[in-house]
């Protein structure tokens, strides 16, 4: 995973709450076995509407998605994170995320940052007034800034310490865990024997 420290780009204002992962990428796009190439599935149903915000030319090249509360609810599909990344997003700002989506984002290097609802509204207004409004997301300082000098606005964002640290360092979770292999092995040795096991396989026919 690449290190994430600070990101600057323009934003897309997504004035929706309760954006579930079925909207972010519909199930028919989940048949692929690769980890990339999901950009065409991103908001596939909504993008068939030419007026959908992502289709507007003034938001071409935007890398920060600003969404209403409860973004990424529903299905656990990590494809939702991959589709956002494949499309070019590096950051999603929302007052509240679905738990699994937020976890998936952290694992894949997409910054899912919780900001106050009032700040989301302010960002929507600013970006709709001027789509070229520069947004800077500083993970080290946990702060989002938007606009330039006189009309700049900024607000802190929330992300858990551990995810922040892993993103800053670009660390792979599995490697970190395997450093504690001895502790896993010790736990396994003390596990009761009556705990279920899938092997040897038993079926209802027996």
């Amino acid at each position, binding site marked *: 995973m690449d290190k994430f420290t600070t990101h600057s780009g323009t934003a897309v204002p997504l004035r929706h709450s309760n954006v579930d992962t079925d909207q972010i990428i519909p199930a028919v796009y989940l048949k692929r*076995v690769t980890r990339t190439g999901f950009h065409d599935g991103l908001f596939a149903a909504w993008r068939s509407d030419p007026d959908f915000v992502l289709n507007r030319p003034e938001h071409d090249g935007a890398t920060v998605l600003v969404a209403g509360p409860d973004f990424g*609810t529903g299905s656990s599909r990590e494809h939702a994170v991959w589709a956002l990344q494949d499309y070019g997003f590096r950051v999603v700002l929302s007052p509240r995320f679905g738990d*699994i989506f937020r976890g998936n984002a952290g*694992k894949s290097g997409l910054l899912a940052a919780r900001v106050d609802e009032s700040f989301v509204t302010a960002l929507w207004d600013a970006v709709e007034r001027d789509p070229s409004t520069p947004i800077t997301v500083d993970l080290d300082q946990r702060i989002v800034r938007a606009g330039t000098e006189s009309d700049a606005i900024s607000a802190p964002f929330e992300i858990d310490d551990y995810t922040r640290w892993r993103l800053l360092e670009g660390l792979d979770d599995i490697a970190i865990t395997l450093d504690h292999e001895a502790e896993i092995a010790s736990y396994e040795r003390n596990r009761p024997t009556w705990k279920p096991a899938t*092997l040897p396989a*038993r079926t209802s026919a027996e």
Partner: protein
Amino acid sequence: MGVTLAEKLWASHVVRSAPGEPDLLFIDLHLVHEVTSPQAFDGLRLAGRGVRRTDLTLATEDHNIPTLDVERPIADPVSRTQVETLRRNCEEFGVRLHPLGDLDQGIVHVVGPQLGLTQPGTTVVCGDSHTSTHGAFGALAFGIGTSEVEHVLATQTLPQQRPKTMAVTVNGRLPEGVSAKDLVLTLIATVGTGGGQGYVVEYRGEAIRALSMEARMTICNMSIEWGAKAGLIAPDETTFDYVRGRPHAPRGAEWDAALAYWKTLVTDDDAEFDREVVLDSNEMAPFVTWGTNPGQGVPLSASVPAPEDFDDPHAQASARRALDYMDLQPGTSMRDIAVDTVFLGSCTNGRIEDLRAAAKVIEGRAVAPDTRMLVVPGSARVRLQAESEGLDVVFKAAGAEWRGAGCSMCLGMNPDQLTPGERSASTSNRNFEGRQGKGGRTHLVSPEVAAATAVLGHLGSTADLPATA
């Protein structure tokens, strides 16, 4: 001070705990399916890693498989590749797989309990948000993403932030004709789709205790639909009776040891939850959704609400959008909504009791002329059980389609999809825009309401049906 059941389950699975880090939890059972695993197995290969505990891992094919002509090769080449990829990965890594055509194939959340692998006191994960189903056994069970699937395959553990705890106490008894599905839809409409976020929820109270294991699974299954990390129910005699004698249940002295432990899995009397919600089930009624998230529901006897009925501006905007998508007018009686397709199945309501409940309603009646009904058992075993009881004959005689096992129209990944504008009454868990097919419109209902709706051609309950001859 005492501790909650969720905290006991958590504490007994901590492999490592250190300040500033999430706890590292041991995973007792990892369920795998074709859609969220291929990239995880690829990741293992790239890093030269294996599956640490194949004996705690089980795979089945469910999301992306057809429910017709299951003996023939899968027609869609992309779907076929995904299913074949799972088969190759399981072969290469030594993972037990129940493929299409196998007697133990089915929806992963139906298969685990059926085999007796889902047991009280365990941690269960799967790359699927409805893993919360297994919490019905007093297990800590939650859905994970593909990166986490890879993590569990490689290490049999997961780093997890400790969640908060919530109690949902449901007092009273559900009236006749009101099911667990109605209960959980009522709950979600009450607390909102984000109400459970960050919490592990324990369902308790008289109404919960009175539920069968399968009904409890329906409740826990929908925990994710109001944002909860997991939902669980303390195990009791109902639980032990269900597990006893299943293929992977402990036997002999092991059973005695397991049972002694399982009986300790209760929330202590003096334990405190971070949040408590109390509901009364005595007045509950058949409950259906009108909108595009599972919280947008009303009693069947009510009407479609207007956006102005909501105080919160987001709820208003969401309602406006949902009414437009669903093509509904405020004030329309829910019973006047005509339905094209009825779907009976899914990990929410695809078990034998669900099929029995629906068959009881539809027996001796016929599916309305302009309505189709799909019956998709949750597993191959459920299908066989239903056939041994003659339920397939009941459904087919009424004009319903009797299908093979899988997720099917719940998520519309396989050919079982709604067409644009088509309206369904579905016993599944999500009424999101396009969930059952692009442009499709979904009303979430219980199995009983689904069956009555199929007969009437519009939303309705058993009470609305004319008597059979």
